[in-house]
């Protein structure tokens, strides 16, 4: 029969239409359906019904811990009175080598005697080339480069804003703990594990222990690498 298909379709649409109001009534006594964090969480889960819109910018959909946008460099928390903390980066160059579009430039620091210093003198990331793949953060052996969660970077000018230098890239470790608490904790645990293993190695110079310590270190690496701790 002609028209039946259209009626069926209209019925489905009507169901959606009605659903979008039913939930409003449910939430009306619980602080409202919109601009309410509790309601937003339910709305965005598989149990969400009706209008699922996120009212950006008033409401923001939280990003998961593993979310990746442009990278940043981790530093120590700055000491009181100081602007910058110590860089974690040792300018080993692994991130620059693994970066698929080659958007990382590192100038290795030099000691007065001309030998390389484990600290970058300059560090640039061209975010017009960066593909947010996260390989730099994944392979950094010092947890010194991480993927930022700040995606609100729109600008009116790219010549000045889109090459991030070391100053722009550096963020204290407390920031990373804030945006990715579980991941940061897991990484800290693994680092501590390695430290302890190293200390053990120093204590006893036995052949077997050394091998054991190395294994333990590899295992700790692996834990972080596969995300087993978070």
């Amino acid at each position, binding site marked *: 029969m002609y028209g039946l298909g259209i009626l069926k379709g209209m019925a489905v649409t009507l169901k959606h239409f009605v659903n979008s109001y039913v939930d409003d009534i449910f939430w009306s006594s619980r602080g409202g359906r919109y601009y309410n964090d509790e309601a937003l969480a339910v709305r965005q889960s598989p149990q969400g019904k009706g*209008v*699922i*819109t*996120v*009212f*950006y*910018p008033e409401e*923001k*959909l939280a*990003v998961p811990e593993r979310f990746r*946008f*442009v990278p940043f460099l981790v530093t120590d928390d700055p000491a009181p009175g100081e602007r910058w903390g110590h860089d974690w980066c040792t300018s080993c160059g692994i991130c620059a080598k693994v970066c*698929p*579009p*080659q*958007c990382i430039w590192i100038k290795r620091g030099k000691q007065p005697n001309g030998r390389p210093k484990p600290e970058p003198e300059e560090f640039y990331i*061209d*975010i*017009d*080339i*960066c*593909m*947010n793949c996260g390989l730099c953060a994944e392979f950094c052996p010092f947890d010194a480069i991480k993927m930022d969660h700040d*995606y*609100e*970077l*729109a*600008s*009116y*000018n*790219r010549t000045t*804003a*889109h090459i991030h230098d070391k100053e722009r890239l550096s963020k204290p470790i407390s920031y990373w703990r804030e945006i990715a608490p579980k991941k940061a904790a897991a990484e800290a645990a693994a680092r501590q594990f390695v430290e302890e293993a190293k200390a053990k190695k120093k204590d006893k110079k036995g052949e077997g222990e050394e091998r054991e310590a190395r294994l333990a270190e590899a295992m700790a690496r692996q834990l972080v690498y596969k995300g087993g701790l978070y």
Partner: protein
Amino acid sequence: MSNTAVPEIAIPAEVENNVFITNIAKLLDPIYNWSRRNSIWPLGFGLACCAIEMICTASSRYDLARFGMEVFRGSPRQADVMIVSGTVTKKMIPIIVRLYNQITEPRYVVSMGACASGGGPFKEGYNVVDGVDKFIPVDVYIPGCPPTPQALLNGLIALQEKIDQQSIATVPWYRKNDPTAEMVPVPRLGPDLYDVRQIDLIKREAAKAQAEAKVTA
């Protein structure tokens, strides 16, 4: 009356005392900008991966309609903003420039994603334009590969803020000799893409290369 911002609006001397609000632009600007910023119609035009995020932004979860931007027009004549969403290739840029030329004033360009802004991860490729701003003026750049829908919304809000800053008295598009209304010359495809504005430069470089070749020979 010190009304230097709007020299065109001449208020006759006999009614000057009766005009309460002397700066008309100040009154009109909020209305003018409010109506414009809430009805920015994008050109329905997707290039690559970012276009998918653009469509997601327009769909229910992020709902571009809240900003009056849901009307994706197929024709550039009806559009206000061009969201360059994706990698701009050399083969495509003549068409993009032509589309830009066909959008009527006032027109805005949002460069979405790393590719459109500066070539992105594909910059090193031989068929990729290293930034759409090499050919057409861009108002807002949104980094990311791809920018998430929320990042795109952030960029579009930045565009709205830009529109808010404009004043009907100073915007160029109601005047004669409007510099922004000029046609951007359409780039051509020779042995490689070339910008018509660069013909002299290319000739000069070719001559230089020939001279060098003679010297080495």
